[in-house]
């Protein structure tokens, strides 16, 4: 093994050791948390109203559309038979949200096992549970020590459905912890004959809930394995691309090939759904597209003029056919012809004429103050700028004027033109360097922030330092 390879292996080894140490110290790193929920949409028939100036609002039929099942439109216009679709929604949340929920959960669990000192004698279940709730909340907040905000709720809807009543008079002996006290209170209520349902205290996402429907209160905030794997893949590919700086290697080649392949596939898919479906198929077969592909697409009649681009598009694919490749040339000829014409007009107007217009301006530029007087300082520098501009344009044009030999006055002016060009190239190079460094900085920020959790500029994990012991 030569010295160069030994150096590389040492660097990689140190890096891996640092990663392992990082993984098992503090809060770890490189994880993505999400909040899972339910989303549902319902199809409704919304009236189309016409509100003319005379004020008589008239209905002009209805239009069919999908709306959020919780929206006002759904409440007003959806019926039991209305078609519905539902799916699980996943929303990314910052690690801080997960950490806070974890702290609150732990604080609630700890508070539940502390003594409940209040005496519940001769009161009703509602008052007793509210007393218990407030006392537990106070204990849990003390346990959380300001690092999280636990909440405690009594799910009266579920308790009522199970037969519990707020007004039930209960008497409970004091003593025991919060958990035991809750059981005693509910047992007393059951003894009064209100209910025999199982009741429980569920702690999830930093919230404690007394309910009979425990199954509905599973933690919604948790680690997303798929997104975490995605993050690690992004890291691996970033490092693989960086590895080219050492030398060309198989890892770099794999990353490069994946980028090319994924980009091509992404282009194809997004072009299909953003262009071909709404802009071509939606024009030719609007009913089919609305019924099967894009429910939100408006109603309309087929526009058969779109057969022309469809045919031209089909002809372009003939390049892939073993015979008849020449047919694709018709489409290419059309594209080249129209693009050339479009660009010629745009460049003449936007580049040629407008730039000449911007250059032919008075050498003395007068800049006025807000009170209408001339600002001498600004006028001087504006004039210097205009004079420099004119000298630059004329000298650069002279440099590119090859019909006259660059000698004497012409040669000197051309030399000034070279200076202007060099300064321009230098400025362009400077901008390019600045751009590339910014991109490198963004990649490093990704590695240090999203992956390694070394920095936290967007306050994603600020509570993390306080919960290092949890991991």
């Amino acid at each position, binding site marked *: 093994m030569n010295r160069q390879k030994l150096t590389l292996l040492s660097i990689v080894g140190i890096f891996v050791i640092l990663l392992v140490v990082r993984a098992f110290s503090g809060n770890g790193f490189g994880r993505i948390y999400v909040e899972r929920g339910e989303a549902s949409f319902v199809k409704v028939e919304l009236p189309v109203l016409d509100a003319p100036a005379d004020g008589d609002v008239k209905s002009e039929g209805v239009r069919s559309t999908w709306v959020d099942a919780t929206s006002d439109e759904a409440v007003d216009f959806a019926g039991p038979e209305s078609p519905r679709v539902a799916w699980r929604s996943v929303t990314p949340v910052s690690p801080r949200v997960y950490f806070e929920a974890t702290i609150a959960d732990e604080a609630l669990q700890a508070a539940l096992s502390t003594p409940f000192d209040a005496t519940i004698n001769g009161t009703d279940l509602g008052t007793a549970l509210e007393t218990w709730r407030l006392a537990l909340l106070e204990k849990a907040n003390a346990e959380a020590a300001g690092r999280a905000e636990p909440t405690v709720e009594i799910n009266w809807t579920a308790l009522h459905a199970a037969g519990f009543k707020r007004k039930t008079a209960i008497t409970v002996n004091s003593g025991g912890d919060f958990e035991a006290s809750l059981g005693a209170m509910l047992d007393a209520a059951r003894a009064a004959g209100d209910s025999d349902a199982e009741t429980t205290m569920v702690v999830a996402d930093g919230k404690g809930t007394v309910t009979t429907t425990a199954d509905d209160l599973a933690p919604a905030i948790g680690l997303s394995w798929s997104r975490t794997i995605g993050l690690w893949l992004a890291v691996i590919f970033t490092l693989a691309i960086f590895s080219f700086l050492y030398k060309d290697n198989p890892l770099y080649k794999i990353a490069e090939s994946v980028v090319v392949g994924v980009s091509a596939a992404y282009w194809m898919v997004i072009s299909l759904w953003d262009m071909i479906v709404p802009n071509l198929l939606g024009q030719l077969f609007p009913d089919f597209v609305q019924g099967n592909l894009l429910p939100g697409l408006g109603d309309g009649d087929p526009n058969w003029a779109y057969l022309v681009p469809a045919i031209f598009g089909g002809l372009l694919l003939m390049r892939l056919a073993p015979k008849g490749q020449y047919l694709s040339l018709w489409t290419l000829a059309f594209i080249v012809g129209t693009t050339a014409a479009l660009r010629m007009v745009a460049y003449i*107007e936007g580049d040629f004429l407008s730039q000449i217009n911007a250059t032919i301006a008075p050498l003395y530029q007068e800049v006025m103050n807000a009170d209408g007087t001339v600002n001498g300082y600004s006028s001087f520098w504006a004039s210097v700028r205009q004079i420099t501009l004119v000298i630059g344009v004329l000298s650069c044009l002279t440099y590119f004027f090859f019909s006259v030999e660059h000698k004497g006055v012409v040669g000197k002016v051309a030399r000034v033109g070279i200076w202007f060009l060099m300064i321009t190239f230098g400025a362009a190079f400077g901008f390019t*360097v*600045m751009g590339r460094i*910014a991109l490198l900085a963004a990649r*490093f920020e990704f590695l240090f922030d999203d992956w390694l959790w070394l*920095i936290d*500029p*967007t306050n994603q994990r600020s509570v993390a330092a306080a919960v290092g012991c949890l991991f």
Partner: protein
Amino acid sequence: MNLIDRMASLDRRWIFLMMGLAVGIPIIVIGITGKTLPEEPTPLAQAAFNVLDDLDPGSRILMAWDFDPASEGELGPMATSFIRQCAQKGHRMYFIALWPVGAQMIRSSTSRVIGGYYPDLVYGKDWVDLGFKAGNEAVIKTIVTDFDQYFPTDARGTSVDAIPMMEGITSLADFDALVNASAGYPGSKEWVLYAATPLKKPLIIGCTGVQAPQMYPYVPNQVQGLLGAIKGAAEYESIVNKWVRSEQLLDALELGGITEPTSSELAARFTENPAEASTWTTEAAAAAMSPEAKTRLIEIANAPIPGIFLEAQRRMGPQLVAHLLMIGLIIAGNVIFFANRRRGVSQ
């Protein structure tokens, strides 16, 4: 082998390592301390801000995000600040993309800014995502006269007829200003040539450093505001941050019963020097304000700026160190070159 010879034959990988450290160490230092370099806005960044600020609230702004993740480091902060200024001002935002991945950039920047800081804005009334359209400059050329032809639906597949803020939009001429964040072709040049020049519409461009020199000739007649590279982004970001803070302070003062012109003067003062807010609330001039209003004012004045609105300014630290390294390397290269020439070493 003397020092000159060793430097002349230095393995380029040492340069890469130095550059990596020059960029990486400032990122960590700035990330931990939260300190950024001060930014003095140039007239171009100020002009970009003024174009949007001079428009009445509710103006229609077309926002074209023509970039991809490869240039997100430069253009992401610009996109964030453009959205923040428009959202704070109350403009209506119409997002489109001529790059396929631009659609993802729209989702990313809107969810971060609108979702995180302006949740009251209503999709379809205050902002709309019209998504990506293929066709490069043909898209611009077409929507100059017929917007619906290219955009029958938004990115979610909803017909534009069912989107309230699309009412009255028939062509690009119906917009009050165009904002473009561009990483190449199709991008800012095409927006200048095919939209801003023929329509004579105000156009603000945020572009990569590579493109910036190409765009300067269009200022100010065809392009009214230009943000070049991360430096332009940092300047504009600092202007928007100050303005938003000033607006928030003004609201807090007026809610507390302080009227114009005093409220404007105080908001400007507290924006520049937040510590003054605490002192002022103890003075007789603040007697009209309730204790809650005073507390709110002090909280706003001293609240840290959210990290996502400091992205560009954070990236100016690595820029400084990396540029110093580059200047050092250029000087070293020249010294080596002239030393070798003096010794008669052939290149």
